[in-house]
């Protein structure tokens, strides 16, 4: 029986290959959409895990999260330093750190901050080297393509922006490397926040500051806050949601974003379902054509004593095998595709996008039984072929 199926596949390999490819494409597409959407969701959520509470200037909460958590370059309204001083001293705050964004070195954003953020207030050590000790030193994220001892000149803004220019008089030396992290910050370069202030005040003689004292108007992009408790986190958030500041839990903003994306997800889900339905239809159409092609042989087998039911099972097996193979290829291609695209995005964004199958994915396997049941229809056509008809047609 297997020999017969193999002989059939071999003889009509081009048509079978086409069918196989179509099924593989349809399943591959839906697997890809499914996995990639999940990867983006999981990856971005994990990347935000390190940030408990973010405080920024009044504006868009989404922009605040995109700029600070994912380091997407975009102009962000600035806060005065005095807000940071207030938060830091607040009794509900475990620790707080300022963040100043805007400069870059090639693909790496430059983040002005304090050692508190990098060591999580002393709870985590650097992977290599030491913390920056003055405004000429920098600590780099694990994915930055520099090493300890390297020197570099930062760019104001991001490469490619119209007003980007090199800060020629500033030169940093790398003194430490952070442990690897699953977020965008692993591709960032960290310098003392004072260095950022200094850089931007250079050439502006009136603003040259006294050594490290409280210029309460020194600008910062955002404040990362680690509250002492969950209740404290909510109180702090409410407290800084008034006036000129904005306080958000990144997870909360992400949830809002996913809700928006959820519609897209539903649409994609429907498209992939339609693709699968199309694949089944193609399979049936292909099967009918395939059987038309073999009708004489099938009819003859019956004439020579083969059992019609056995032939029915044979045809059905052959078609089911084809759809199963197509599905196996499709799932593999979909997985590899999602893996590849995730890898590309990770390389750009700095946080990994996990391509994983979850328990709910068993639904994808429904394609197989549905296809198999649908294929009963064309397979039953085999019953209708009569060799007597072909004998009549061929003369005599």
């Amino acid at each position, binding site marked *: *029986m297997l020999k*017969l199926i193999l002989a059939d596949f071999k003889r009509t390999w081009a048509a079978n290959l086409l069918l196989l490819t179509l099924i593989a494409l349809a399943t591959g597409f839906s697997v890809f959409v499914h996995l990639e959407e999940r990867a983006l969701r999981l990856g971005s959520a994990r990347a935000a895990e390190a940030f408990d509470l973010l405080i920024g200037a009044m504006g868009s909460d989404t922009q605040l999260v995109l700029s600070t958590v994912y380091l997407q370059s975009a102009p962000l309204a600035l806060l005065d330093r005095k807000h940071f001083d207030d938060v830091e001293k607040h009794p509900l705050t475990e620790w707080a750190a300022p963040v100043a964004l805007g400069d870059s070195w090639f693909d790496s954003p430059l983040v002005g901050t304090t050692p508190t953020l990098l060591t999580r207030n002393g709870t985590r050590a650097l992977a290599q080297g030491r913390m920056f000790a003055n405004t000429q030193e920098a600590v780099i994220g694990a994915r930055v393509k520099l090493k300890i001892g390297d020197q570099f000149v930062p760019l104001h803004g991001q490469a490619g922006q119209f007003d980007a220019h090199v800060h020629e008089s500033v030169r940093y030396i790398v003194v430490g490397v952070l442990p690897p992290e699953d977020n965008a910050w692993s591709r960032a370069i960290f310098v003392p926040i004072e260095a950022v202030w200094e850089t931007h005040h250079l050439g502006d003689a009136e603003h040259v500051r006294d050594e490290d004292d409280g210029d309460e108007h020194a600008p910062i992009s955002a404040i990362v806050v680690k509250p002492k408790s969950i209740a404290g986190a909510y109180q702090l958030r409410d407290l800084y949601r008034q006036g000129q500041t904005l306080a958000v839990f990144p997870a909360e903003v992400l949830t809002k974003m996913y809700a928006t994306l959820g519609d897209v997800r539903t649409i994609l889900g429907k498209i992939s379902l339609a693709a699968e339905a199309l694949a089944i239809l193609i399979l049936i159409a292909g099967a009918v054509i395939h059987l038309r092609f073999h009708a004489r042989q099938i009819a003859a*087998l019956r004439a020579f004593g*083969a*059992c019609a*039911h056995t032939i029915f099972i*044979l045809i059905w097996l052959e078609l089911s095998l084809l759809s199963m193979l197509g599905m196996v290829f499709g799932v593999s291609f979909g997985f590899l595709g999602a893996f590849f695209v995730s890898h590309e995005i990770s390389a750009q964004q700095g946080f990994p996008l996990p391509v994983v199958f979850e328990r709910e994915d068993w639904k994808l396997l429904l394609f197989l039984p549905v296809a198999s049941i649908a294929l009963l229809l064309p397979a039953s056509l085999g019953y209708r072929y*009569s060799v*007597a008809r072909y004998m009549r047609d061929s003369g*005599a």
Partner: protein
Amino acid sequence: MNRRILVKEAVVRFGPQTVLDISRLAIGQSVRLAVMGESGSGKTTLLNILSGLENVSSGEVWWGDMRLDSLNAFQRDRFRGRNAGLVLQDFYLYPGLCVLDNVLLPTRLGAAAEGENLEERARALLDQLGLQRPRQSVDSLSRGEKQRVAIARALLNSPGVLLADEPTASLDAQNSAEVAELLVALARERGSTLICVTHDKALAARMDFCLELSKGTPVEAVFETSAGTDAEC
């Protein structure tokens, strides 16, 4: 089993057209009968109702004690698989498979019990028919060789009746003669009834009787020999 075939008051109609109308035809066991006639005279239809590939519109078809026209299509398939060997003009070999697999295929896919030493019997038959390479693909065979494979397939279950539809029509003269010779010799050797629909006078000459049809009814029955068998019309 009594393998006398009897057709009584058999009429086959396709739509309004009557293609076969036989009041009585009896074919005795081990008889060799040629069925001749113009195209459209109902020769193939007669063969089809004898083999159960088609059923009569009215009338009776008996194989010994079995009334074939009372069976449904699946039952007739099974009955034919067990009791009749079929050789057709266009061979109907399964492409892509080897000679041996082609001989074995219908039986292997059949509902009937396979019997013992199926493959051994197939190889012996092929040998007898002069086909030396059972593993050769049928696609590379000549037409004469293909028809020999078809004959081996028909004979595999040692059927009591061999039914052939124009077995030599698509072959050249030499292959025609050889195939006709083999068909007759093998039927005789097994004591099988042989019914050949044919235009081939040389093949018809090897038969005991010749039945000529015209417009669905017998016009002439030629009784050239009578070797203790009966054929009536």
